[in-house]
């Protein structure tokens, strides 16, 4: 087990792999890791190659950069080109393709696009440049949305009139439901997202076992965390139980972070529906600013094209995000589509399945193929 030797505690990892192999037996299991951080760990550490062939991991929609639809990127670019605007964005969003280029291209063409680490940096730029209008391109799940919300509360308290937010915040539960409703995928359980759960806690996932009869185990980001969470899923299934369990209790609390949830609810409300790249429209799956924050809402302050743009034909990000195909099964993977020239969003962020696989997975897979086996079979 070549990969396992590189783990923090190889003997614990070996024991977990043995346990997983035993409980899986001759049956086949498909588990989805919802979070892009997990996808990254899985490819980075070759976890798919230490698992028995009967246990398959499929990648979910939990990479916020990956799920932003083309039309919203076009809207962002149009905001960036508004006269007098300083457009601020996380670095991850700069290369995400819209229908006519990305934010980097807009910057090269003269738009004042600046990349920031934090929404507070964007607010700082607004305070420092009272003569300009500063727009912050807000993306992310419940992990980053509370930060945007707190920044807006500060902007209001300080009466910063030249700051607004283009909200593309999304919530994690509706896409999980959409995937459970999707006919083209049979799943046996989920690895629940780690950091999102520090905010929302464990309760919002209860519908997964209660309504769909599938187990969900919230997992940390270490290879051992992932292996342990898989073992916990199998234990549940073998004992005939279906529940929400927490492997990452070192960090995630049952109730989440009530303070962050209260701030979220004060600033944001659910949109009736929102388009997800590859997944289509999902109802009540995204956050917009409440009316009390209208003057900070870029969608109210500016006229946006707001056009729906179909994903490029060649790109199968949608299937990748639903776990229907693996990145390497996309026809343009690694040829026309690479991290330098991404066609789809899944190739942009390091947490996107295509990029993670491009960077790490290929060599592991090739190594496994050369060895002529999955590494575990030589145990």
């Amino acid at each position: 087990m070549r990969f396992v030797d590189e783990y923090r505690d190889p003997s614990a990892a070996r024991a977990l792999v043995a346990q997983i192999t035993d409980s899986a037996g001759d049956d086949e299991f498909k588990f989805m890791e919802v979070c892009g951080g997990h996808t990254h760990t899985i490819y980075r550490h070759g976890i798919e190659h230490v698992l028995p062939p009967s246990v398959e991991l499929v990648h979910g929609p939990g990479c916020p950069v990956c799920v932003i639809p083309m039309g919203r990127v076009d809207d962002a670019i149009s905001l960036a080109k508004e006269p007098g605007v300083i457009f601020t964005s996380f670095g991850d969003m700069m290369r995400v393709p819209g229908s006519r280029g990305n934010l980097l291209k807009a910057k090269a063409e003269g738009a004042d696009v600046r990349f920031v680490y934090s929404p507070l940096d964007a607010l700082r730029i607004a305070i420092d440049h009272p003569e300009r209008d500063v727009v912050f391109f807000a993306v992310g799940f419940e992990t980053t949305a509370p930060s945007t919300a707190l920044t807006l509360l500060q902007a209001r308290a300080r009466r910063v009139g030249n700051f607004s937010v283009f909200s593309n915040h999304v919530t994690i539960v509706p896409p999980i439901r959409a995937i459970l409703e999707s006919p083209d995928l049979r799943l046996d359980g989920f690895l629940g997202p780690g950091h999102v759960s520090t905010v929302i806690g464990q309760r919002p996932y209860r519908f997964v076992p209660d309504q769909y009869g599938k187990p969900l185990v919230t997992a940390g980001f270490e290879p051992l965390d992932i292996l342990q969470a898989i073992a916990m899923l199998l234990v549940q299934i073998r004992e005939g139980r279906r529940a929400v369990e927490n492997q990452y209790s070192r960090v995630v609390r049952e109730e989440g972070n009530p303070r962050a949830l209260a701030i979220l609810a004060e600033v944001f409300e659910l949109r009736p529906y929102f388009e997800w790249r590859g997944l289509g429209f999902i109802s009540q799956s995204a956050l917009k600013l409440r009316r009390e924050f209208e003057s900070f809402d870029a969608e109210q302050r500016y006229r946006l094209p707001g056009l729906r743009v179909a994903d490029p034909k060649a790109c199968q990000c949608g299937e990748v995000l639903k776990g229907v195909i693996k990145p390497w099964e996309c026809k343009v993977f690694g040829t026309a589509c690479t991290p330098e020239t991404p066609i789809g969003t899944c190739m942009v962020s390091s947490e996107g399945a295509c990029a993670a696989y491009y960077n790490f997975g290929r060599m592991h897979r090739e190594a496994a193929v050369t060895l002529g086996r999955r590494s575990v079979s030589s145990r």
Partner: protein
Amino acid sequence: MCLGIPGQLVELVDTNDQLARVDVSGVTRIINIGLLEDEQLAPGDWVLIHVGFAMSKIDEDEAALALASLQLMGQAYDDELSALWASKITSDTKGG
């Protein structure tokens, strides 16, 4: 943007703005701790930082674990750290 980076609280800077100075891999930076208001953070405590905000309180062992696995991520972690170093969160409201 999705990475949680462990940092250790050095001092509380400004209680109004809920800011604190943290040490991240030997470099100090100002972050916002308003989302952990209920935790009564004190110097010496470890937190996971997302986009300039402390998102969860963790213990020292978890901080070491998280740091070790981030370092294994290579480029993605370097990018996140350099973004954090470039961050200019400060406590003054007047600019500068």
